[in-house]
């Protein structure tokens, strides 16, 4: 309880500082006034293939460096595993699925991909060529980015 009070006090005191840091946003995060239509975001296509998308932070699920249009991942079939499974990865020169994906939520090792890790795109996604929307000073973390 004491901690919570302290935390809210810090939050309260630092609020004006945060607002100042980002400059005058006109009371809003939008870049145009309320009455006008915002500009339509540009549609971006997924490249057919990327070369080596680097990791940005530790434990980041690696990005998918290729197009996955039409890939079906459901209870009937898993297109990703037809190249990335332990059985097939060597044949296709694909990255193999991590052994950590064999563990179920109780920490028990299974003999194949655990159902909770079966739906690849819950964590692994392809990436478009998209520069950051807002200028920022983010730097990839430590050794994973090299």
């Amino acid at each position: 309880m004491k901690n919570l009070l302290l935390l809210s006090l810090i939050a309260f005191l630092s609020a004006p500082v945060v607002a100042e840091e980002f400059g005058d946003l006109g009371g809003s995060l939008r870049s145009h006034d309320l009455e006008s239509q915002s500009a339509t975001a540009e549609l971006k296509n997924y490249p057919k293939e990327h070369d080596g998308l680097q990791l940005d932070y530790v434990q980041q699920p690696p990005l998918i460096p290729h197009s996955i249009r039409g890939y079906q991942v459901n209870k009937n079939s898993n297109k990703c595993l037809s190249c990335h499974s332990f059985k097939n990865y060597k044949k296709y020169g694909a990255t193999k699925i991590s052994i950590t994906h064999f563990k179920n939520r109780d920490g028990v090792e299974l003999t194949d991909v655990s159902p909770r890790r079966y739906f690849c795109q819950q964590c692994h996604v392809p990436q478009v060529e998209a520069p950051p929307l807002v200028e920022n000073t983010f730097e990839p973390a430590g050794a994973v980015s090299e």
Partner: protein
Amino acid sequence: MQLIKSIWRTLTRPAVHYSLGFLTIGGFVAGIIFWGGFNTALEMTNTEEFCVSCHEMRNNVFEELKPTIHYSNRSGVRASCPDCHVPHNWTDKIARKMQASKEVWGKIFGTINTPEKFEAKRRELAEHEWSRLKANDSLECRNCHEFDSMDFTLQAGRAAKQHSTALASGEKTCIDCHKGIAHQLPDMTGVEGWH
């Protein structure tokens, strides 16, 4: 029996009332009409419109086709039902059409008239199409996708690798890797190349 005999007698004797010219020209004209009519009817059954006039096709497989590359794409070239499911070559087409009479039977007796029934038959129906395409070396794919016209340098690395090796050597054919290119897949347990 009497009837057959009398028909046979008429057919084996020369015509009495009609001239040879009338019979030849008349037969020729009638032939054109019947043949044309037959082909027109055949072509009518060979359209997307005809296929999706049954709800079995419209609500299941046609819906699945819509988001795929063969139906919506950047260049606006579209492959529709008969482009992949009916051979273009005439004799093969007739053979397929005769097979398709079983589908009329299925329609009448409602073999796949609910989504559940269709789902239960999905593997079997898919296997028919896989084995047909495997047997004819993916002919319906190759009607548009010519191997000799492929530029591997313009393909993505993964595609170029497979096309220049397994496909080039004839070891594999299109359908071996491109199952599910236009429709949802059935349970793939035990299918070669699947997890």
